């Protein structure tokens, strides 16, 4: 894989996509050229001031658009993501990437993406890239409530895929979780990204059905490049392994799944 690049990127567009949720496109051709679905970047505001986010935050690459533009799904969780969500076109953000191991998309299977919350982000890129390949891709996307559902029209525009929506309160799409009542007829490759309990449920589902599963994990990160060892997850062998360089995408069997 090509080495990551550190680069200031100009904000091209900011769209509100749901409550506290934004789609932000950045002009960063140096970073975009080699980006692959499942990889991430560190996004920050640089060393000029110490207001949050002082440390850059990891974001899955949400899509690669024309002209070296990358799209990111930014949801407000705290002061740092609040400030990142308030950028305007023309502002600059410091980007480090692309980072991490991408999804490994099989040639001979269809793909079912299981997305929980902001875990949708990498699957927008998977879906968009699949358009240019031969992959059959479904996106099953769940949120707690309808006001948090990322604009389905935007999902269609980015990926060309009609998302299968689930909400726990039933206000948008089917009521329930992404793994409820799933038709998995043709032995697909499962990809999952979302909160820990959801990933655990996806792992159980994959094991029960005998299906291959890759997961993209979310952890607090310091550096994003493997030096600080801040972002570890527990491997099936009982070791702490770095989600930034050994992940963020893992074969689910590489990880320990606590019961």
């Amino acid at each position, binding site marked *: 894989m090509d*080495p*990551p690049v*550190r680069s200031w990127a100009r904000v091209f567009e900011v769209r509100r996509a749901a409550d506290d949720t934004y789609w932000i496109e950045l002009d960063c051709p140096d970073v975009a050229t080699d980006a692959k679905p499942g990889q991430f970047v560190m996004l*920050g505001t*640089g*060393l000029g001031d*110490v207001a*949050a*986010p*002082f*440390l*850059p935050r990891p974001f899955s690459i949400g899509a690669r658009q024309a002209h070296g533009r990358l799209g990111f799904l930014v949801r407000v969780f705290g002061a*740092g993501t609040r400030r990142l969500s308030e950028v305007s076109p023309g502002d600059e953000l*410091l980007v*480090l990437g692309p980072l991490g191991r991408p999804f490994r998309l099989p040639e001979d299977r269809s793909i079912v993406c299981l997305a929980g919350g902001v875990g949708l982000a990498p699957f927008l890129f998977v879906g968009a890239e699949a358009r240019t390949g031969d992959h059959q891709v479904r996106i099953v996307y769940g949120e707690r409530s309808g006001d948090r559902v990322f604009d389905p029209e935007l999902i269609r525009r980015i990926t060309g895929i009609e998302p299968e929506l689930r909400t726990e309160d039933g206000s948008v799409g089917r009521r329930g979780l992404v793994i409820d009542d799933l038709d998995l007829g043709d032995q697909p490759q499962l990809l999952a990204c979302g909160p820990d309990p959801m990933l655990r449920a996806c792992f159980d589902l994959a094991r029960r059905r005998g299906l291959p599963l890759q997961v993209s994990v979310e*952890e*607090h*990160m*310091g*550096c*994003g*490049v*493997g*030096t*600080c*060892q*801040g*972002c*570890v*997850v527990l491997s099936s062998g009982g*070791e*702490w392994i770095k989600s930034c*360089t050994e992940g963020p995408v893992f074969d689910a069997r590489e990880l320990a799944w606590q019961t």
Partner: protein
Amino acid sequence: MADLSQHLLGVSFQSPVLLASGTCGYGEEYADLIPLEEIGGLVTKAVSLEPRAGNPPHRVAETPGGMINAIGLQNVGLDRFRAEKLPWLRANLRAAQVLINVVGHSAEEYGAVVAGLDSDDGFLGYEINVSCPNVNDGTLFGVDQRALSGLVAGLRAITERPLVVKLTPNVPDIGVYARICEEAGADGLSTINTFPGMLIDVEKRRPVIGNVSGGVSGPAILPMGVYLTWRAAAAVSIPVIGIGGIRSGSDALQYVLAGASMVQVGTALFVDPSAPIQIQADVTEYMERHGFARLADLVGALTISDRP
């Protein structure tokens, strides 16, 4: 052209900027992003005798103006460091100097790591991390005057390579600990390590950090680092390397004026890996603007008087 080089620990450093231990891995991880051969050098991730697994997550979190971490000194251990990490440093860093950060739970463990490395090529010397609990009596080496003196003297007897002791800020008078190290044979000091701290997630009513507490670093600790470096440098005649919250040339110069011969950049790397090169450019610009030909002329060049 301003001369950034500094002569200390028996060698010439081409620049006063080092990368701090724990923030630059074993060098290789940042090789694509930082032109390592253009800076002063780096201090490796800590090396212990046996591999260490480290702490459960979360290991890092942001704090106002910085971060808190409790990695737990996760490292590959002496044998794998020698087999897998040192060869890369040996082959790739020639103009940049390498210090190996050493940790242990006993004076014997520190000694075994130093003895195990001492005949290898590819590094200049050691930075001794004394912010580790001593298994024999549970205190930290860095806050126990007798343990610290014994540790440094013991290592001095094992190696002729430069021995730099990285002091903890958690002592009432850092000058006392600085002198203890100098008298026991240390060649230099690094001031300072992180401050202990804690963050609580009030929604969950749980500590943010898996280890409950951790070390605070970043711009938030800059004034304490400058102060403690000034105190330490005034107490000894061996060189001092300033650390704590440096993110600009101006920050680095504060440490130099306080008495530091070199500086280390840590947390700032995570925010922007270009920081070390930018700091060097900033310091060069300052020296030219103020008419200083050599950086050495700025070390400790602080004017303290009643009137401005």
